[in-house]
C-alpha cells in the first residue's frame, strides 16, 4: 500500500527552464510534507518542506505547492541548473507526539537538467 506516489520516474528539462516534480498521497492524516534530493552514492538531503496548513512555501529557486483537496504536491525549480540533476524524493510525515518523525517516501523522480 503505497501512501506517497511519484508517478514520473524521470524528467528531462533544459537548463534555465522550469522543472516541475509531482507527488500524490492518499493518507489525509499527513501533516507535513518534505522534498529530499539525492545524488548517487550519497544520502538524501533535505530541500524544502511545507506544513499542511499552508499551500505554498518558497526558498530561493525552489517552491513547493500543496493542494490538500487533491492530495497533491509539487516542487518547482526555477531556473533549473545542471547541478540540480539528481533523484528527488517526496515524503510525508505523521507526527509521533513530537518525539520523532515517521517519513513515508515516494519512489523518487530522476531529474536530468540538460545544458
Amino acid at each position, binding site marked *: 500500500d503505497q501512501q506517497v506516489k511519484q508517478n514520473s520516474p524521470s524528467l528531462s528539462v533544459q537548463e534555465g527552464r522550469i522543472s516541475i516534480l509531482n507527488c500524490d498521497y492518499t493518507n489525509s492524516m499527513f501533516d507535513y510534507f*518534505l522534498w*529530499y534530493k539525492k545524488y548517487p*552514492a*550519497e*544520502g*538524501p*538531503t*533535505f530541500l524544502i*518542506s511545507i506544513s499542511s496548513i499552508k499551500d505554498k512555501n518558497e526558498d530561493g529557486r525552489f517552491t513547493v505547492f500543496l493542494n490538500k483537496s487533491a492530495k497533491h504536491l509539487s516542487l518547482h525549480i526555477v531556473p533549473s541548473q545542471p547541478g540540480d540533476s539528481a*533523484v528527488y*524524493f517526496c515524503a510525508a*510525515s505523521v*507526527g*509521533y507526539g*513530537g*518525539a*520523532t*518523525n*515517521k*517519513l*513515508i*517516501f515516494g*519512489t*523518487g523522480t530522476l531529474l536530468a537538467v540538460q545544458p
Partner: protein
Amino acid sequence: DTAVSQTPKYLVTQMGNDKSIKCEQNLGHDTMYWYKQDSKKFLKIMFSYNNKELIINETVPNRFSPKSPDKAHLNLHINSLELGDSAVYFCASSQAAGELFFGEGSRLTVL
C-alpha cells in the same frame, strides 16, 4: 566533519552470517532512525529511537536488532542474513520531529 556517519559503506557477506552497521551523529539530535532502500528504490523506515528509547518499530523481522548505547549512536545488527536483506541501509537523525539528516548509506550485499 560528517554530520551523520555510517560504517561500513559497503558490506558483502554470505547468507547465514551476522553483521553490524554502525551509525554516529554529531548534530546533537535526540532522535535517530534506520531506513532501508530496497532494489525498487523504496525508502522505508525500520526503526526510530528518541533518547535511546525505541519509538518506532516497523514490521521488521526480529533478525534485525537496533541498539542505541547513547543518543549519538544507533547501531543495526542483523542475524542470519538472507538474500532479501540486500539493500542500502540509511541512518538518519533529527531534532525531535524535525527534518531528517541522512548518512551516506551502507550497501549490504548478501550472496
